[in-house]
């Protein structure tokens, strides 16, 4: 199988700060791949580098067999879409859901807009009752569903998820994660998902990479993580931290 995303020796530098120090990874087609690490470990930067939002200093990114240059063309954005972390910030405050969903269709000159919008809203479980609402008339979970619908409306093959549920409360988190799982199965999408929550990553992803300070610590499968068969000390600490506070009597 070919790689959907292949990254080789990626460096990202923001004003002399090396946010990524030569990271390499490979995500297979149809796979769900997780990136784990503490805040500032460079996992979100990696996603942003793929989309062209972060300045790439060195290294190569290949998506669906095509090597990416400095700029991304429209065809790229039809293949790769992203869901942001904060659903309160990722929807334009002056636009209705309808307008938000129409925008990508207008940019790419897609004709059957009406049908696509209705289908996208149905797919994320919102229905047309939400179509003409503004962002402030939606709850956090509903907003994230709209953001997912917006990402899906161009029918991409790869979805980048930047902590898509960390701003939501636990019950809504589960709903959104299930929705993402379902969408992935139905559309055979490739996921590259960032999270600091190990439970979510083990639930959603088959393989994962642990990151620290802009470097890859190790690559694991979900079952290795569940079985605690890890080799790096950092991962062991991360696992211990994720078990939460344990009272010692």
């Amino acid at each position, binding site marked *: 199988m070919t790689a959907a995303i292949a990254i080789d020796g990626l460096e990202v530098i923001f004003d002399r700060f090396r946010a990524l120090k030569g990271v390499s990874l490979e995500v297979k087609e149809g796979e769900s791949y997780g990136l784990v690490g503490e805040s500032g470990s460079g996992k979100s930067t990696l996603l942003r580098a793929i989309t062209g939002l972060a300045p790439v200093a060195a290294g190569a990114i290949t998506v669906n067999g095509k090597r990416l240059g400095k700029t991304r063309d429209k065809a790229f954005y039809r293949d790769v879409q992203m869901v942001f972390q*904060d659903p309160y910030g990722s929807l334009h405050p002056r636009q209705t859901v309808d307008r938000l969903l129409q925008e990508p269709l207008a940019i790419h000159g897609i004709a059957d807009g009406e049908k696509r919008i209705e289908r996208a809203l149905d797919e994320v479980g919102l229905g047309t009752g939400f179509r003409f*609402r503004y962002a402030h008339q939606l709850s956090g979970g509903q907003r994230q569903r709209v953001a997912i619908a917006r990402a899906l409306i161009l029918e991409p093959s790869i979805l980048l998820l930047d902590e898509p549920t960390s701003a939501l409360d636990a019950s809504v988190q589960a709903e959104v994660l299930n929705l993402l799982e379902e969408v992935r199965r139905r559309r055979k999408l490739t996921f590259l998902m960032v999270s600091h929550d190990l439970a979510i990553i083990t639930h959603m992803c088959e393989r994962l990479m642990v990151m620290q300070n802009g470097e890859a610590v190790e690559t694991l499968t979900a079952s290795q993580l569940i079985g605690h068969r890890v080799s790096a000390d950092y991962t062991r600490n991360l696992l211990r931290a994720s078990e939460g506070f344990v009272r010692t009597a």
Partner: protein
Amino acid sequence: MSVATIQSRREWLLSDRPASRLQARLGRAYVAWRRFSANRLALVGMLIIIGLLVVAALADVLAPYSPTFGDLKNARLLAPSAAHWFGTDDLGRDIYSRIVYGARWTLYVVILVAIIAAPIGLLVGAVAGYAGGWTDTILMRITDIFLAFPKLVLALAFVAALGPGIENAVLAIAITSWPPYARIARAETLTVRNSDYIKAVQLMGASPFRIVLRHIMPMCISSLIIRVTLDMAGIILTAAGLGFLGLGAQPPLPEWGAMIASGRRFILDQWWVAAAPGAAILIVSLGFNLLGDGLRDALDPRSGDQ
């Protein structure tokens, strides 16, 4: 209309789940209107401006005399009376009629300046803020140069170069009043350009032009509308100032500033010649200021969940 239908209309407007684009837009406008109309003074301001519009539109009906031809023989410098409500000027023209027609010129100046200056400022500011780098530096330094001149002096220089006349006065005022709008638009742009919702449109492959025009400008527009409305009074006063200096409207145009200028000569004995247009400028300026304040409450993007 019965109470019940009014009630159901309000519910339709305030609905949480609008069923059409129109309903969503009207609902939003209604919320803004409710916030605006809660401010009594803003309503007074709006009434003054509506009054100005009505007077300008119906000038032919409202004015009993010609604004440009007077009765030089019998009606020079008459005090206010039943026949001439605001008296007459040195050429025997009815001042009330001149003020009624002057409303047209005031509106003409204010609207043209707003139409020219606001879009220039919005475009310059939004492009500078979004593009950043060299574009930003160059555009903002040009803005700074314009800001460095006192407004009236720069307008005077332009009128002196272009020749006196109300059209040139409008141009001169427009040229001098866009820089603050560019500053506001740039500031607003800087606050939204790095937000996730702008990144999201970038990730759809939208062109920078489209992002600025359709996603950033709408975020700048409400603060711009507020600022322009508050500036209207200043524009009227600048136009009046230019008229007063003889560089704006030329006789016999019934422009309020020019009317004050011609009344200056008789200000001690025939006070009404200058006082009537002065009061008109005062009231209209006040109206625009009150309206602007009300709009600030209604449209401010930072207040509430607009």
